[in-house]
Each structure stands twice: as C-alpha cells, then as structure tokens.
C-alpha cells in the first residue's frame, strides 16, 4: 500500500479514536453522541430487527426507483434539449440555480397529489436527481469531439450505429458523472421526504428516534445510511475516474 493510503487510513482511524475517547471520558455527553464503537454495536443489533429491515427495504426500494426515473428521464430530456439549443439557452440559468433552492418545500404538495406513501417519496427523489442528469447529459453531448462525427461518416455508419458505436461511448464519462450525482441527490430527496412526513423508512426511523432520545437507534441508522452512501459513491467515483482517464478528460 502506498504511503498516501496508509496516512489516509491512519488519519481516519485517529479521528474516530479521538471521538471515541472524548465520548468515553465524558467531554461529549451521551445525550449528544454515543461512542462510535457503540454505534457499530447498535447497528449490528438493528440489522437483526425485522421491523427495521422493513424500513431499510422500503427506503432502498424508493431510492432505486427514484434513481432509475431521474437517470432515464434526465437523459431523455438532455438529448431533447440538446437538439433544441434555443430552448436550452433559455433553461440554462434555471438549471444552474436549481440546486440552491430547497426543492423539498414541494413535498407537502406532492403529498396532497400522491398521498402519504412511496409515490410521493419517489417523485421527490426523482425531482432532486433529474436536473443533475440533464445538465451532465448536455455537457457530455457538447464535448463529443467533432472529429468523431466525421469519422463515423467516413466509415459510412448509419445514424443508428453512429449513435450507438461513436456518440454514446464518447459521451459516457459525463453520463456517468450525471449518474453519480443523480444517485446522491435521489438519496437526499427520499430521505428528506421521510424526515418530513412518511409512514415508513430510514429517515422516519431516524427522526422518530431523535424525538424519543433514542440515540442508539438514531446513530445506528445514521451509520448505516452514511456508510452505504460513501461506499456506493466511491464505487461510482472510481468508475467515473477510469472513464475520464481513458477518454483523456
């Protein structure tokens, strides 16, 4: 292992150990935070609980549907907008301001339309993720080198094959960036919705535990969702990095 990796692991371990120490000697009281080791124990216990597992399955399923919707929908809208540059030029400022407004203020309206249940949460997650996918699809299509289109023509590829064999692969690095962001945003959308109002799910379980001063459940669930997000995100990040390197940025 490289010196960098060793230092990094040591740094993270030292940070966790510091928190553990501060919790153990009482500088951080138990009502604020439980020691990390107890979080792990709490999580292990939660994972054997049938009701908690139902919540986890509920949330993960909603997130998965939201991701699929935002990736497929965002790609379609992106391709469409790329074909109509005037419309795109008008919408661009809207897209770049989109993520500075808390989109989940619309969540109560979604509840009125779709009821309290998975549909509202899925729509919330998809609304959050779709714009990142649209923007990155547009960037990906913009950056297809012009020479590739010429090559496709010289090779006499029919339009179908030119898209499938040349254009799509050339745009892939940015599409993957879009997918990575859509995943992150869908998680935020669904979990935020669950915090506000839901019948089940990880977010609801966390806010319930918070109101109940049940720090074991709260930190256990937090540990679960954060670990999951970090793992998924680093995998996507690694994939993205490889693609960008292969395509020379």
């Amino acid at each position, binding site marked *: 292992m490289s010196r960098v990796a060793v230092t990094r692991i040591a740094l993270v371990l030292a940070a966790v150990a510091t928190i553990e120490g501060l919790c153990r000697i009482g500088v951080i009281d138990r009502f*604020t*935070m439980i020691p990390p080791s107890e979080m792990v124990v709490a999580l292990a216990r939660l994972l054997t609980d049938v009701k908690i597992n139902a919540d986890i399955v509920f949330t993960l399923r909603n997130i998965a549907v939201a991701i699929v919707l935002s990736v497929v929908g965002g790609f379609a809208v992106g391709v469409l907008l790329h074909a109509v540059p*005037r419309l*795109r030029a*008008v919408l661009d400022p809207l897209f*770049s*301001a989109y*993520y500075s407004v808390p989109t989940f203020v619309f969540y109560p309206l979604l509840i009125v339309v779709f009821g309290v249940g998975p549909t509202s949460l899925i729509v919330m997650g998809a609304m959050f993720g779709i714009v990142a996918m649209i923007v990155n699809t547009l960037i990906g299509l913009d950056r297809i080198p012009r020479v590739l289109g010429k090559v496709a023509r010289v090779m006499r590829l029919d339009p179908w094959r030119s898209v499938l064999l040349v254009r799509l692969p050339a745009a892939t690095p940015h599409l993957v960036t879009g997918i990575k962001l859509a995943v992150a945003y869908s998680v935020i959308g669904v*979990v*935020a919705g669950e915090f506000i109002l839901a019948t089940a799910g990880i977010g609801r379980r966390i806010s319930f535990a918070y109101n109940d001063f049940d720090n074991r459940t709260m930190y256990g669930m937090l540990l679960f969702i954060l670990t999951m997000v970090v793992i998924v995100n680093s995998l996507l990040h690694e994939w993205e990095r490889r693609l960008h390197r292969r395509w020379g940025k």
Partner: protein
Amino acid sequence: MGAPPAPALGQVKAQRFDYLWLALGFLALWQGLFALSGPEALASPAATLARALRYLQTPQFWVHVHSTGTAFVYACVVALLGGLALGLWLGFRRFAGEVADPILGSLYSIPKITLYPVILLIFGLGVSAKVAFGAIHGLFPVAIFAMNGVRKVAPIYLKTAHVMGLSPWATVKTVLIPAAMPEIVTGLRIGFSSTLLGTLIGELFASNAGIGFILIRAMEAHNVPDIMALTMLLFTFAATANGLLLLLERRVRHGLPSGR
C-alpha cells in the same frame, strides 16, 4: 454539488423574446395544473404572486429575512474563508492533498440532511445550528475547487517563479493564486449556493425564526399559497444571486491570463 458551469453555447444564444415565451409557457402550464388539481394542491399563479407581494410589504417578513440573512452571512464567512484556507493549503502541500482528496469527496457527497439530528444535539435550536448547517454544506465544495485549482497550475509557472527568485510567499501571491483564480471563483459560487441551501434546510428543521421557519410552519398548516409564494421568492433570490456570480465568474475567466 452544484451543476458545473455550462460550456460555451457558442452558436446559439437565447433571444430576448425566448424568455418571454418561456415565462408564458410556464405560466400556462402552472395555470393548467392548477385547473387540473384544484386549490387543495396548488395555488394559481395570480394568487401566488399576490401573496408574495403581500409578504414583501409586511414588516414581520423582513424580521425573518434579517434572521436568515444574519445566519447566512456567518455561515458564508465560515464556509468560504475556511474552505479557501483549507483548499489552498491542501493544494500547496501535494502529499496532504492526496491524503485528503477522497476524504473531502466523501464528506462533500454524504447527504448532510441526515446529520440534522446530530447538529441539533450539538448546537441546540437557534442561530448556531443554522450557521453550522450552512457551513458544512458550503465548506467542502470551496475547498475541493480551490485545491484542484492550485494543483492544476502548470509547472512552468512555478519554474519561472523559481528562476526569477521569488520568495515562497510572493510565489503564492503573484503566481499560484492568480493562476488558480478561475477554479477558485467557481468554487466560491457553488459554495455560496450550497451555503444558502444549507442555511435554509437548517431553518426548516432547527429554528424559531427565518424564512425556512415560516416555510415549515406553512407546510405544517398546509397553507399552499404561502408555501408557493415563499418558494417563488426564494427561487427568485437564489437564481438572481447565482446569475450575478456566474457573470462574475465569466469575467474572471476571460480576464485571464493577466499580463503578469
């Protein structure tokens, strides 16, 4: 995780009337949805606008704006200055930067909204929780962009600085920071937006004053016109601020390379 700046559109620019068409289309869509779903789910455009204008005229509203504004300014100071200091330092120290890079990336990408109970437990209800929430949203993008900006500075600049016998401090001030400026400005813009978002989210869950607070109150009371009017005001503000910062960013990018 703001959208990266759109690359030059080049050929096609929006024409003046296009925005008008967009606005008209949007209003028509809104009115249509309103007709479909009824006043239970949506407020009509006219009602929303009237409500927004009435908000702007009530002194109580400006008290909340002031509360949000104060928290936002504090959070910005922490996020922008802190992020810049951290990012520049990690950019100069190659080893430290490589160690910290994936850690920063993970911290940036975790859904910070899940941390709201922790922030509340640590800071309690009030201004400090809002500031903390805003700051953790904005700090990481600023740091990441600044770090990458410094790292990407062409080695030839540094060699030139060395040949000219510049002191380390002069190198930082006259070579490294100006060369990294475009990235730094992009980071500051995204950091600004993220901090605003974070502050508002903090107010939604953790406060007794501010725009986020009246928004969550409207949500709980299911007051649809209020929700929509506040959302409209927020979006207008965020979009305007973002547009101005984009303008600034373009100017900085075009202003380079300066003849130093």
